[in-house]
């Protein structure tokens, strides 16, 4: 488990280094800022670096980072990748409000009894799902305050669900309310360019 996390973080850090050098070549895109989130299924606290990977598609934002849940709540780590696309926004002086920003995420969960590959005690396909990898849709609502030409700060509220919750909900729409499978996260983003 620890090995998997180390490998993932190594690959991720290599990607960040590569993108850092790209930033120096053209500072108008790629690494734009960082995000700090409370809850939202990625950890009690999670953080990620924010990128705009395509110069001509400024509305597309990619986040990559890790999350942590302390031992009192399960001692869990996550490695997270998020992609979102801004649709429409309202501006008022230095404020910008994005009411709906849809996105998708995929994350790896690491902890006791959570596996990327099920251990040998189970026959093949004994459990059909991957206990480590979760993915699903999310929607952000964001309020951005422009500090200067390049710098700004955003408060966001995130609503998300995941593959297992949807798989549970879809055959049980009479008993389970859609709101039962939605979870919340909230936090701030800081953009420095």
């Amino acid at each position, binding site marked *: 488990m620890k090995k998997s996390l180390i490998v993932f973080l190594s690959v991720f850090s290599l990607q960040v280094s590569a993108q850092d050098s790209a930033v120096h070549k053209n500072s108008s895109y790629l690494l734009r800022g960082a995000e700090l989130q*409370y*809850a*939202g*299924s*990625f*950890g*009690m606290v999670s953080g990620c670096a924010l990128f705009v990977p395509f110069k001509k598609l400024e509305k597309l934002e990619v986040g990559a980072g890790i*999350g942590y*849940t302390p031992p*009192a*709540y*399960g001692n*869990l780590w*996550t490695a997270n990748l998020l992609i979102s696309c801004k649709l429409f926004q309202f501006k008022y002086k230095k404020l910008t409000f994005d009411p709906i920003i849809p996105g998708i995420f995929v994350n790896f*969960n690491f*902890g*006791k*009894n*959570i596996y990327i590959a099920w*251990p040998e*005690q*189970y026959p093949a396909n004994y*459990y059909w*799902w991957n*206990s480590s990898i*979760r993915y699903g849709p999310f929607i952000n609502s964001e309020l951005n305050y422009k500090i200067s030409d390049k710098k700004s700060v955003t408060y966001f509220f995130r609503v998300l669900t*995941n593959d*297992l*919750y949807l*798989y*549970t909900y879809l*055959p*049980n*729409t*009479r*008993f*389970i309310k859609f709101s*039962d*499978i*939605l*979870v*919340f*996260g*909230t936090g701030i983003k800081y953009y420095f360019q």
Partner: protein
Amino acid sequence: MKNNIAVLAFLLTAFSCNKFEYNVYEVDRQVNDPVVKTQYNIDRLLKLPRKDTLHVVFFGDPQRFYDDTEDLVEAVNALPLVDAVFICGDLADFGLNREYYLINQQLKLLKVPFVTVVGNHDCLGNGLEVYEDTYGPVNYSFTWNDVRFVGLNTCGREFNFNGHVPDLNWMQQQVEDSANFEGCIFFSHVGPNNGDFDQALEDGYVKITEEAKNTIFSINGHNHSFAIGQPYDDGIWYLNTSSPSNRVYSYVTIYPYSPDEKKFDCIPVGF
């Protein structure tokens, strides 16, 4: 100042509620619901007046079959004669905190006391810890109307067949004080003749059921379908109770004081 405290209290409550999920595998964040606890329900059972005949519903594996389980609860609540409900494991499918929360919303609607045992799916991820926090110990016993009920964890595969699941020493101890009960019932998730039971412990389990005072039957879930038989040709009845997904539960009538060798009747009931 008062307003500030009220706002702060609101924010703390809102941000600590279970909608702000830390992780799908989180523990110790579930709604602490005293009415689903095993001990609470045993206490309710023990307050019932003493009787010659017990009427008990058994089912297992409600995992992810919430709409079917809702119908089952409604059907059981409409029964004219029912004293208790026993759920033979797999309350969750992925071992997630949120799944236990959802199934508890249904079990709480049962009009009669209910108890559970742990299933293999309940052990996944941090599920075992959530299970114990939610309901109580995975091994427990109690004497109700002179019947010793022994509920135990038999999910050997989840513990890599380590030779300790089920805990045969504990199981043996629960039926040693034979003066204190008339007959006994063993209930669990995985039956001893299933490949997910620790095969090294199968003979030991069967021996305890044979040597215990008046074993009425041993019942488990896991196979999702109803079955009854004597697989070891030793006079001990083994029952497998169905999952709500098959729209069947087991209606068991127990006669603790009957002089007959068979002290129960069991009917699979569709709903």
